[in-house]
């Protein structure tokens, strides 16, 4: 990995670490490879509101619209449209929460970048990384980084200027026939105002709490007492 690519990444890591309260709106697309090689593209929008280190609210649209709320004590996964929600006690910090979300296959845009302890070692498995260019994305000038790992490729655009934040992410799943891609562009608000109860989940009047499926309860690791 080149020094200039690493420098851009470090700059982003420093900026993310300094952010205590932010709101990101994400527009993403995800390829699905069907039989006979047809590549179908699914689009979705999401808003991530974060107040580090203990609050998160993610509203995700698309095929399975859902709400993810973390208040420092409890994690709620909800489908307001269907009137169901599931809850579990959650760890004390967002950094720990993110590990759990990933271990439980919970998909959320930008999940790679929410935990700064995770970010600190994120490049450890990367074989190659280069700074390609600087490019314009949504009116912003962003540094374009390209990474190669044994089975996946990913590209990241990081904004230039005072705050180095992710502009865009592309992930190519190389081990899957058809090399489907995921891509997301982000717009950051680094000074949002959140209502006092913004990170409190309130179930709808007729919403019902449901259990988790067996497989989404226990991932590989045993529960902590």
């Amino acid at each position, binding site marked *: 990995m080149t020094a200039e690519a690493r420098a851009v990444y470090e700059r982003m890591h420093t900026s993310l670490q300094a952010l205590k309260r932010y709101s990101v709106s994400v527009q993403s697309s*995800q*390829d*699905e*490879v*069907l*039989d*006979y090689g*047809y590549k*179908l593209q*699914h689009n979705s929008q999401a808003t991530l509101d974060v107040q580090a280190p203990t609050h998160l609210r993610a509203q995700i649209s698309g*095929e*399975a619209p*859902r709400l993810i709320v973390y208040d420092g004590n409890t*994690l709620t996964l909800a*489908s307001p449209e269907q009137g*169901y*929600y*599931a*809850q*579990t*006690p*959650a760890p004390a910090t967002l950094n*720990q929460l993110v*590990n759990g979300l*990933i*271990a*439980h*296959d*919970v*998909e*959320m*845009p930008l999940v*790679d970048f929410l935990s700064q302890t*995770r970010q600190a*070692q994120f490049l*450890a*498995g990367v074989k190659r990384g280069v700074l390609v260019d600087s490019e314009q994305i949504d009116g912003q000038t962003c540094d374009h980084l390209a990474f190669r*790992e044994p089975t*996946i490729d*990913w590209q990241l655009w990081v904004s230039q200027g005072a705050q180095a934040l992710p502009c865009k992410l592309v*992930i190519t*799943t190389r081990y*899957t026939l*058809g090399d*489907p891609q995921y891509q997301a562009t982000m717009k950051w608000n680094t000074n949002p105002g959140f209502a006092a109860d913004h990170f409190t989940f309130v179930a709808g009047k007729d919403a*019902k709490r*449901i*259990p*988790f*499926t*067996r*497989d*989404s*309860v*226990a*991932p*590989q690791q045993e*529960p*902590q*007492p």
Partner: protein
Amino acid sequence: MTAQVPQLLGYLALSLLLIGAPLVEAARLGGHGAGGGVRAHSSVSHARAASQPRVQPNRNIQRPPVRRDNNVNINKNININDNRNYRHGDVDIDVDHHGWGWDEDVDIDVDHNGRGDWDIDVDVDHHHPVATAAIVTGSVLAIGSMINSLPPNCQQVYRHGNEYYYCNNQYYQAQWNNNSVVYVVVNNP
């Protein structure tokens, strides 16, 4: 030259047929996932985890019962090779899956990341790891099977304070599966 025209038309028809099938399928399944396709991963972490070699850890490890429900049978014989087909027949409907365990030191660049070590198969559709086969009226699903939406003509029933749906002589319970609600076939509550 002219002899090639029908041949060309034949190829065209064939390719339309081939391309048409999955499209029709996708359109029919609509709203809830096009069904069965292989998706790009939406995070580098998930992509890394899922691309790890398949390892079969012992899933019968004793678990401290962190859940409020004391009826959890922790020694149940889960088929570790079930490859996510969810058709093992020993699902206990009294299990109250209301909690997660938290692994607080996940190491992102080691092969032990989350569910990648389970039966992750690159063919798994992470959004909707659910049988998308059409539910034909009268067909019987194995206990533990999951579907995205209930068959028609279901009756809502309450047993022991829980809500179930009774459809075609089978009971279903709504449960949360990673990213969406699924209906799981359960034993008669």
